[in-house]
């Protein structure tokens, strides 16, 4: 019986070794392992995994192709719904989506859908080097496999209708891919000098290798005919109004994410040595401060406190660890409430990150030169459940104490950038600064659509991709009428 085979474990870099380098933590499956794992899928008639996937990936279909050894076929099935499978296979919270809904998970371990997706995405580029445990494989060592044939471009009639996509993150890339497949003339505008949005500046190399993985997926989107213009800030360099009125774009999709960092508003936050996770990660990821040959400076020091418990907090903590620091995660609830992906928390613990739970900062203490010297915290206990269903933490009176530290990184979440809403006529935002949009992604201005973190506030890569696809359908419908 297929379901008697235990879930095939995936090989990872040794925690002690990987804590000192930026190479990818997880090696992924090789062909043999992937085919064995694929054989565990029951190919359910009513695939709950697929319903749980925000982009509606045809999971049983691609796994069936893979189980038969037809990797190119599996890739073609995935390409119908996702342009970023190598990314999603690595960063999706599978445990709450596809794998969390897998029937096999009821009594045992669910099918490793994420790892299989990753394998299928990597294989055309890496060939038999996929899942290599013999150490990190460098980009140049991969066999060059052309992208043609991997993309599931359906025959479609080209239209000369131009669509502008603002932001080259997951929402924008997903929206652009679908529209390009349907024949639209799509241009993505990116404010930074590299495409990818949070995939480039936010998620670290050891989780999502940039040259090895991300670059290729973005190239695949380009191969669909999508143009990407970097260094264009919508709202400053040009506006949405000028794109539509002067440059001939018939529709616009805003996928600008949630880029504004939050701070706690506690005393001492402007001391030297207090950074937003965004700054710390952008310096390291986009600006490659971890590489000796890049000029970008970064400051970690000997001891770092990261405040927060989400994926961004884990990324910042594990980055600081790799830069040589002792790292504490300071979180006001308990481990059970950590919003980060399970795998990230597990990896962080393995690597030696220290978790200070039920701890909330109240002040940053500085030295006479204005640099951080300690983080003053208060102990917390869990009280009644709040709106989110999580038990809300309450400070324990008289429990103040100081954690000596050189650096404090604030990873408290982010909110959308107001640059576009402030410079575009007729765009409404809500109290939290998020763009107001319908389920389909239509904003309050005709022809302008939005999706992803810019609408929902900070969420996940895959939800943003889902929103991008939904908006693509709405844009298609809109342009067929206008």
């Amino acid at each position, binding site marked *: 019986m297929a379901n008697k085979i235990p879930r095939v474990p995936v090989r990872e870099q040794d925690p002690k070794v990987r804590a000192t380098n930026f190479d990818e933590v997880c090696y992924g499956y090789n062909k043999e392992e992937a085919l064995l794992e694929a054989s565990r899928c029951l190919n359910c008639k009513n695939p709950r995994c697929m319903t749980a996937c925000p982009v509606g990936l045809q999971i049983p279909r691609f796994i069936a192709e893979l189980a038969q050894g037809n990797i190119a076929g599996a890739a073609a099935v995935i390409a119908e719904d996702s342009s970023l499978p190598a990314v999603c296979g690595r960063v999706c919270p599978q445990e709450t989506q596809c794998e969390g809904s897998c029937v096999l998970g009821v009594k045992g371990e669910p099918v490793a859908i994420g790892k299989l997706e990753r394998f299928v995405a990597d294989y055309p580029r890496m060939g038999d080097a996929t899942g290599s445990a013999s150490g990190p494989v460098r980009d140049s060592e991969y066999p060059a496999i052309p992208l043609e044939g991997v993309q599931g471009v359906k025959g479609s009639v080209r239209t000369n209708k131009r669509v502008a996509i603002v932001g080259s993150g997951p929402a924008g890339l997903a929206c652009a891919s679908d529209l390009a497949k349907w024949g639209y003339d799509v241009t993505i505008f990116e404010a930074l*000098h590299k495409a990818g949005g949070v995939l480039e500046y936010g998620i670290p190399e050891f989780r999502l290798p940039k040259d090895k993985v991300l670059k290729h997926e973005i190239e695949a989107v380009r191969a669909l005919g999508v143009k990407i213009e970097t*260094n264009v800030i919508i709202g400053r360099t040009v506006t949405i109004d000028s794109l539509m009125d002067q440059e001939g774009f018939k529709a616009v999709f805003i996928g600008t994410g949630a*880029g504004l960092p939050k*701070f706690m508003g506690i005393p001492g936050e402007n001391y030297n040595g207090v950074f937003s996770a965004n*700054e710390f990660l*952008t310096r390291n990821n986009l*600006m490659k401060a971890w590489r000796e040959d890049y000029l970008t*400076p970064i*400051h970690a020091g000997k001891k770092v406190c990261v405040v927060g418990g989400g994926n961004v907090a884990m990324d910042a903590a594990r980055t600081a660890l790799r830069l040589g620091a002792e790292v504490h995660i300071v979180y006001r609830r308990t481990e059970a409430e950590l919003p980060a992906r399970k795998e990230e928390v597990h990896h962080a613990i393995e690597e030696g990150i220290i978790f200070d739970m039920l701890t909330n900062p109240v002040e940053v203490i500085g030295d006479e030169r204005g640099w951080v010297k300690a983080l003053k915290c208060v102990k917390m206990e869990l009280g009644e459940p709040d709106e989110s269903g999580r038990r809300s933490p309450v400070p324990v009176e008289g429990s103040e104490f100081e954690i000596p530290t050189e650096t404090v990184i604030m990873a408290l979440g982010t909110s959308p950038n107001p*640059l576009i809403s402030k410079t575009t006529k007729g765009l409404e935002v809500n109290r939290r600064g998020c763009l107001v949009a319908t389920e389909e992604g239509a904003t309050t201005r005709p022809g302008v659509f939005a999706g992803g973190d810019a609408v929902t506030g900070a969420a996940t890569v895959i939800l943003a991709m889902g929103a991008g696809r939904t908006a693509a359908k709405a844009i298609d419908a809109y342009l067929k009428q206008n």
Partner: protein
Amino acid sequence: MLTPAICRMKVEAPRLAAAAQPGQFLIVRADEKGERIPLTISDFDAKRGTVTIVTQKIGASSTDIIAFEPGEAFADVVGPLGLPSEFVTMAPEELKKQRYILIAGGVGTAPVYPQAKWLKEHGVPVDVIIGAKTKDLLIYVEEMRAVCDNLFICTDDGSEGFHGMGTNMLEHVVSEGHQYTQAVIIGPMIMMKFTTLTCKKLGIPAIVSLNTLMVDGTGMCGACRVSVGGKTRFACVEGPEFDGYQVDFDEAMRRQGQYKAEEAEANEKHVCKIGRGK
């Protein structure tokens, strides 16, 4: 080269040139491995599609920029960033009542130029003080003379113009009977701090342009945060110009030096690298 350490260059960037306003800045990256460097725009020409920037040799990255030969290209140029100067959006009747004194220190003279030019073009009375350590470090003197009513030059060592700093010059000019409704101060942080204090003493409102650390320049990183009137503001999107009276300059100066240790190390390495290449 304006001086041996200060370089002016025109950069082709049509979209940026068409959108630029006085007071705004841009970000350049010399090459793939360089930093993103924020520079205040010194001039812009929408017709030719060019913007002018002025850089002073400070660290490894600015050295790379200065090393450019005419015809070479930056890896990246992006902008305009930040908000335009206050007067750009001021009501015409309000603007007509103003008398501006623009006070420039060192390389800060370059971004003062488009402001004086704009005010002159809009018929607003504008005087300019240019201060530098010494005669050889004075820049934009003739260009500035053409776009202001009165130009006052001062040098710390007295080698040209008035002998003294911008603060002394300002006091002198006011004592001679010149009156102003608004000062704009652009220069090194320490110069802006003391010139603001002088303005306060003389009862002239002062606007300063803060050249804080930045990475993205769009509000993402918060490296540029400054305390203005006790509140944390992001210089990149809420500035770069703020009410000088409200700015915590000591904090701003301290924050500006945040990566000094790392930068000193980079400079050393950088020199070594060039040495090896030769």
